[in-house]
């Protein structure tokens, strides 16, 4: 069971210090199956787009329609764990008792044996795993991820990326993944869309050879996307 999202004419502006900033400006986008990466410079509206899809903001114009069935899960840039709850309680957060198999999720995210630890007793990478498990606890059909690995060191980040790919293979879900890292986008994405000026600027399918993914990206695609990003001035 997977779900997607169909966005048409989406606009959102914010008033910051009396100045109006048009963050999204008539954005059209349709999620397809797999991992879609939204790439763009900082401040381009990537997070706003995810918050709109998650229902945490209301659009000024346009529509967001969920396609398919199932729930939406969200993983934030910071783990955002409840500091007074254990790892297991954080994973179960917001669920009725017995609705999710916490032990299985702890296993799946490499946290077996750490269910009773409080967040401050866990490393940064482990806290991110708990946050990921919490999003998966709802058996989401679509997972929104807002630069979830940006604050991690390089080795932990790579481990988390592999973990995500594994989980994506194991569970039937689509992923909408926001990042400003081109390397991350090329490694994780089945499709990469570039956000600029409040709209989608480019849309690339990432060709995948059968077998495990490599971290050596398709050079031609890298050059194409890089030139798209470089020609745009940061918003």
């Amino acid at each position, binding site marked *: 069971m997977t779900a997607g999202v169909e966005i048409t004419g989406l606009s959102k502006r914010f008033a910051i210090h009396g100045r109006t900033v048009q963050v999204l400006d008539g954005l059209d986008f349709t999620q397809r199956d797999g991992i879609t990466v939204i790439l763009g410079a900082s401040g381009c509206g990537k997070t706003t787009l995810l918050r709109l899809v*998650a229902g*945490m903001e209301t659009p000024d114009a346009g529509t967001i329609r969920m396609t398919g069935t199932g729930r939406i*899960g969200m993983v934030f840039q910071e783990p955002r764990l*409840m500091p*007074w709850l254990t790892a297991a309680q954080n994973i179960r957060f*917001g669920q009725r008792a017995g609705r999710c198999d916490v032990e299985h999720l702890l296993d799946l995210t490499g946290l077996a044996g750490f269910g009773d630890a409080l967040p401050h007793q866990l490393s940064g990478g482990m806290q991110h795993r708990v946050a990921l498990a919490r999003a998966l606890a709802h058996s989401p059909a679509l997972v929104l991820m807002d630069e979830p690995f940006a604050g991690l060191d390089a080795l932990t980040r790579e481990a988390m990326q592999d973990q995500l790919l594994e989980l994506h293979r194991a569970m039937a879900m689509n992923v909408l993944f926001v990042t400003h890292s081109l390397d991350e986008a090329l490694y994780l994405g089945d499709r990469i869309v570039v956000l600029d000026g409040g709209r989608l600027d480019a849309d690339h399918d990432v060709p995948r050879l059968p077998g495990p993914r490599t971290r050596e990206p398709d050079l031609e695609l890298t050059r194409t996307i890089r030139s798209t990003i470089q020609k745009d001035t940061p918003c």
Partner: protein
Amino acid sequence: MSAFLRGVLVTAAVVAVWWLLTALELWSAYVLPSPARVWSSAVEMTASGELPGHVVTSFGRVLVGFAVAFGLAFAFAVVALVLPGLDGFLQPLLGFLRNVPPLSLIPLLILWFGIDETGKLVVIVLTAFFPMYMNISKGLRSCSPQLLDVGTSVQLSGAGKFFLIRVPHALPDILVGMRISLGFAWRALVGAEMLAAASGLGYLINDAQQMSRSDRVIVGILAIGIVGVATDRLFARAVRGRLRWGIDDSWS
């Protein structure tokens, strides 16, 4: 040296100085009764059930007043959070009451309610209300929007976010307010009892003063201090077991 041992040492030193001053007979036994005299009065008052009776009466008043004040403080803090417009109307009145010492109301309270329980209850409630109200209000308002977003992402209702995120997040502030209020309530109660009561530790002290029994006055003062410290310690101990994240050190 353990904290307990240090406490015992300081107490022993104070009692030793006290004993020395009375042994030198610098003042009459009425002005400063000896530790032995105070001790024998304390034993006698405890054995007769007089002292425990006054302690229980005073403590009961504090508990009732404290519970009412907590209910009101929580309700007003929730109003301040949910209805900031209404809170704007309440703030001038609350600000006024906060700056009026409740003991100054006693003449009016005696006039209105006599010397029965209501007047003392009003004094305790007014004294205990503000530290709790301000801390609970601050705690509920300062909840991290990032954590509230998590509530939205797991589809919690408004009430779910309030009880599962806002209240636990505010718990350290709520408990600090409760601890301060408990001490305030205890102190205000004794004042109220000294002016208008027929029982309780404040009454005991006032009565002893009128009978020129300084030894009984000191027994009353010691009882107030000991019960106050014991209550605070018990509260701190109960809280330490509950707060598992980060503020342990401030709850010694």
